[in-house]
């Protein structure tokens, strides 16, 4: 596998260093442009296992609103984001919903639960 150069913006802190990351596939060779060591960790993470928090909504029956917002209890692998969103579209809860309630357990086998972000009382 050949060496590649990838540009990333580190978001560990608000400075937002532009990192020039030299790597071979998922193997990190060197990082330039970082102002602290966190940049190297960030680059490493982005190369080997990029993860994101995902927030969206799911349908609710009988609530004051038709949707309730949800979030991942921990970041999930970035390539799974759209699969997760498709899963969430199939979910339909019954009001009332409590904040922190598990909406989807162990989503897509990631070990990460999806939680409700708010209380949603039953409506009329």
């Amino acid at each position, binding site marked *: 596998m050949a060496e590649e150069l990838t540009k990333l913006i580190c978001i560990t802190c608000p400075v937002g260093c532009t990192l020039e990351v030299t790597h071979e596939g998922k193997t990190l060779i060197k990082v330039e442009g970082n102002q602290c060591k966190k940049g190297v960790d960030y680059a490493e993470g982005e190369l080997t296992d990029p993860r994101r928090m995902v927030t969206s909504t799911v349908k609710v029956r009988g609530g004051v609103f038709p949707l309730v917002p949800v979030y991942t209890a921990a970041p999930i692998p970035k390539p799974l984001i759209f699969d997760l*969103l498709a899963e969430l579209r199939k979910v339909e809860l019954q009001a009332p919903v409590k904040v922190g309630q598990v909406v989807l357990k162990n989503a897509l086998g990631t070990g990460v639960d999806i939680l409700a972000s708010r209380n949603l009382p039953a409506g009329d």
Partner: protein
Amino acid sequence: MLKQKYDVIVIGSGPAGLAAAIEAKKTGAEDVLIIERAKELGGILQQCIHNGFGVEILKQDLPGPAYAQRFIDEAEQLGVEVLLDAMVLDISPARHIYAISKWSGFAELDARAIVLSMGCRERTRAQIRIPGTRPAGVYTAGTAQRFVNIEGFMPGKRFVILGSGDIGMIMARRLTFEGAKVERVLEIMPFLTGLIRNYVQCLLDFNIPLQLRHTVSRIIGNSRVEAVEAVQVDDKWQPIPGTEEIIPCDTLLLSVGLIPENELSRKAGVALDPVTGGPYVDEGMQTSVPGIFAAGNVVHVYDLVDWVTEAGFRAGRSAAKFALAERKRAARQVKLQPGDNIRYIVPHVMDKESLAEADQRLQMRVIQPIEDKVWVEVLDGDNLVTRKSQRYVRPGEMVTVDIPQKAYDAVQKADTLTVRVVRR
């Protein structure tokens, strides 16, 4: 049942209002009422379903509604009263409030102290005067956010977003998540106006192109938006002829800035700063009208909700003390004045004695970004009172500097303190 008189009445139940009500109770105010125009507490946080809230003060990364829920629960436990689905029509300088609601009818209330926490509104198409037709399909980012996240409807299929503010970028991702196509984000300034974190996680992650120095020069379509014309601008924000490009889309979202919402403040006779659009405040968030305090985006537009909550705490504490007649009128104040590259400073004035109790925090926005190490300096004339080093300053991120208690003596001599940003 509503009482006729309250120690503290808080107008608006977003993060600033919730914090103010909670802190007013904790400080000893007995009867505290929140008046909220929506059918539930939490303000705009209820539609901000993305995470990123609470990192600074809760040390937790929460979605907006979950962040709000913490404070809603606390307010409830403390016995804060609430009037929902209600609108304040008028406030007199003597703190007499007229409010109406479908449920409680017309109410007249008296407050020993008032906290204004009405937040802000979005700048509209008209305020940036985009030429063209007036079809359906032009929304502010916040209105679209409400439709998508709360009402449960998509306002379009193909979007162009004008403005690289945080709400605009967050909506770009949100719409992409729900199956819409975001063609482009345009920004008239030569720099990003929102946070880099949002640029990376909302735009870069999903290959949504951002064009700096670009704006919308025309809206096309009679019934519904059919396209927009984008154009590059020069250093004076004027369109450069020949750079026009038609982008087909059915919706234009605007994320072009927020304006503190101060119509009620005006009615109460509160003096407003033309730069921030919000009230002039002292270090305890008191406005020009004694007994009327203000906190949050109604004062100036914040970058992080955590600091809004903090300002709410401060205003709630001051309001409760005022209501309990514990807050002394400042004998001697020092003015805080923007210097080089500072657009404004909050608070505008500071009680010189306040440094006897605690460090005092100044919040400000810069005019120009400097991607270099800088000093943020507080000066009395040529004399340095305090300074702090930063790795950069950007208009999109608030700058804070604390005046330490040890500067007490230096501040006593000053009439005006100037804050400036200089390269190191």
